[in-house]
């Protein structure tokens, strides 16, 4: 027990002998020494994303027989009663707005933090 007390005491003294060191410009000094950030990576990422999106679109177009099903669906939509069309339009609008709102809130939180 006595040995344990001595160990605890020594550890406590060691921790107290290392108080918090104020930054005092240290971080700024480190940031100045960092190599310049490469903006190239951002544009490369965008290019990859756009490229894969275009490729996916082209694939979908080819695999869906020239997008014929789209024309069929649009024709079917036009045949719907006006009230149904209105409900669909409002529903889609609300869905898009909700998505935008969620994205805006999460981005605001990110910026604030």
């Amino acid at each position, binding site marked *: 027990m006595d040995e344990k007390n001595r*160990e605890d005491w020594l*550890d406590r003294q060691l921790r*107290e002998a290392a108080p918090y060191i*104020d930054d005092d410009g240290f971080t700024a000094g*480190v*940031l100045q*020494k960092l190599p310049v*950030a*490469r903006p190239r990576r951002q544009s490369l990422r965008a290019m990859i994303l756009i490229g894969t999106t275009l490729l996916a679109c082209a694939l979908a177009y080819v695999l869906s027989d020239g997008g014929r099903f789209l024309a069929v669906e649009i024709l079917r939509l036009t045949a719907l009663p006006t009230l149904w069309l209105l409900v669909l339009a409002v529903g889609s609008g609300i869905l898009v707005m909700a998505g935008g709102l969620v994205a805006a809130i999460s981005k605001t939180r990110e910026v604030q*933090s």
Partner: protein
Amino acid sequence: MELTDANLIARVLVDDDQHAFGELVRRHQSAVRGLLRQLTRTDLALADDLAQDTFVRAYKHIRSFRGEARFSTWLYRIAYNCFREDARRRKELVGIDEEQLQAEADPQTADPGLRHDLMHALSVLPLRERSAVLLCCQNGLSHDEAARVLDIPLGTVKTNVLRGRVKLQKMLAAWGPN
């Protein structure tokens, strides 16, 4: 909401976000500089130069951080390597500066006499024991983490901590708990 170290590291990795890295530096600078000050036997200028090198090196090699250990443990390892390389370059370790020790003593945190004796006792420990004691007893690393930082076997760390503790307790016998 405060971002975790992992979030900040992800931002550095994905966007090269230097502001995120700055936040990491702000969080860990005190611990890294403190460790290096003790390793260099309170040579403040040298310790801060080594700490700067540590963070610059961490930024350059952040892709090699696998997240298996805590970020602080990874930083300690880089800091210790910087210190060892510098010590090798200099061929000899810097001697203890009594005046600097006096200036460093913070009367609010501990008895200046005890603090002075503790710093002196630490400085006369062999480097392997001093490093192990500082990492495990002062910075709260587990033996396993300290073994990774120092790149030595776990059993050696345990032995060094034990020996270092015994020596410190002997040297500080007059100050011990009542």
